[in-house]
């Protein structure tokens, strides 16, 4: 469903993504882990066509993101980092706009919007301006716009950032419900989250994949069975020696 081949991205001299390859199939929930600045968001931005790779390529459902971006983008639902939303819109007008551009037929739009509004619990703020909403609500509106067209592929950059523990739990449940027939890639800093919702974990540091396997296997690598220890070990071992 998603095939990533030797993906590279440089910003000037800095190699943000340095030869990342992996593929994801429907039913998989892929957790993208790594320290800040490891290249997680940059990779996601290349999958969604927001950034053009310096080298390598991404295929989404058979469509090459570089050659046929519109076909690829049509299959994807995307929550960008920080959940950017038009501040002067309301969740309702935003969802109507996204549903229309994403090609949800006019007759189904209302039902689709009602469904996602219930899924992410934003019915109470549907007609409030987005810039007056709390961080948690904004994140959930961002999530709603990512799923409003019922995409086959979901790319979620830190979907639970800024949510309280209950909201995090709800979002994880939502991801689990949707995972049956979708490809989901999510990035997170929260290791327990990977354990809770992901069927596969990729750890990326300095633009390179340093671990690709199940969260369970990852955990077993640590003598104490603690994910954060393995994470620290893997991500710091790969760091280049400092001067």
């Amino acid at each position: 469903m998603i095939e990533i081949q030797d993906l590279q991205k440089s910003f000037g001299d800095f190699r943000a993504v340095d030869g990342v390859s992996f593929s994801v199939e429907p039913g998989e929930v892929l957790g993208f882990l790594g320290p800040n600045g490891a290249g997680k968001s940059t990779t996601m931005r290349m999958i969604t066509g927001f950034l053009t790779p310096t080298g390598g390529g991404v295929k989404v459902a058979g469509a090459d993101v570089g050659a046929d971006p519109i076909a690829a983008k049509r299959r994807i639902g995307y929550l960008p980092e920080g959940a950017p939303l038009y501040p002067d819109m309301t969740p309702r007008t935003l969802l109507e706009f996204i549903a229309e551009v994403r090609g949800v037929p006019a007759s189904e739009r209302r039902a689709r919007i009602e469904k996602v509004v219930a899924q992410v619990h934003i019915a109470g703020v549907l007609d409030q301006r987005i810039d007056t909403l709390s961080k948690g609500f904004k994140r959930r509106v961002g999530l709603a716009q990512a799923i409003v067209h019922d995409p086959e592929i979901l790319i979620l950059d830190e979907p639970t950032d800024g949510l309280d523990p209950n909201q995090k739990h709800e979002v994880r449940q939502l991801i689990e419900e949707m995972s049956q027939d979708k490809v989901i890639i999510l990035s997170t800093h929260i290791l327990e989250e990977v354990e809770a919702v992901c069927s596969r974990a990729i750890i990326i540091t300095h633009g390179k994949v340093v671990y690709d396997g199940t969260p369970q296997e990852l955990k077993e690598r640590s003598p104490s069975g603690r994910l954060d220890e393995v994470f620290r070990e893997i991500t710091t071992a790969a760091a280049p020696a400092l001067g």
Partner: protein
Amino acid sequence: MKSTTTILKRELRGYFTTPVAYVFIVIFLLLTGILTFYMGGFFEREQADLAPFFFFHPWLYLILVPAISMRLWAEERKTGTIELLLTLPISTGQAVMGKFLAAWAFTAIALAATFPVWITVNVLGDPDNGVILAAYIGSLLMAGGYLAIGSCISAMTNNQVIAFVVSIVGCLLFILAGLPAVLDFFTGWAPQAVIDTVSSFSFMTHFNSISKGVIDLRDVIFYASLIGCFLLANTLILDAKKGE
């Protein structure tokens, strides 16, 4: 086309859900009023036309249109919504076109709101309404030219102040292109053909003939190709920024 319309609708609605539209229209009407009646000597001239009204448009737009265009892309970049917009299943060109057309439609609304001036001149005298209509069309075309330049410049930065100032300078060059100050820069070293070309880029030249009631196809083509070129550059800049 359909996607362009959807973007256009969202954008245009955006002007009216923020104070931007109302502030802009009020200031625009206030300034056209002051310029027409005080500086333009509308009554003193005792002529039934809107020449003093249209005379100031190139200069008025120089300040006001960049105020509209500066936010087109710089704001999207600043708030990060550009990532939302450009990952939708639309081409960059459709996004550019949708935003531009919305801004243009908005300036058309502001321009239409000046209709009391038209009523005034019709009450006081018997003007040639064909000339007035032509001048309105010319004014709108010119606004489109300013907007396309401003939109293109806005795509280069995430700073609205920079977009505003650079757009003013960019548009000013197109106003001044016909004036000796700019042409002197070229005379002496550039061939006459270059000088003629530069002067033919002047907004003033193309606006003056239309505002006298002559809609020359060449003037229309000038504005259409100017808008087309800058929107194309705008699209290329956005695509190039993805690869940076």
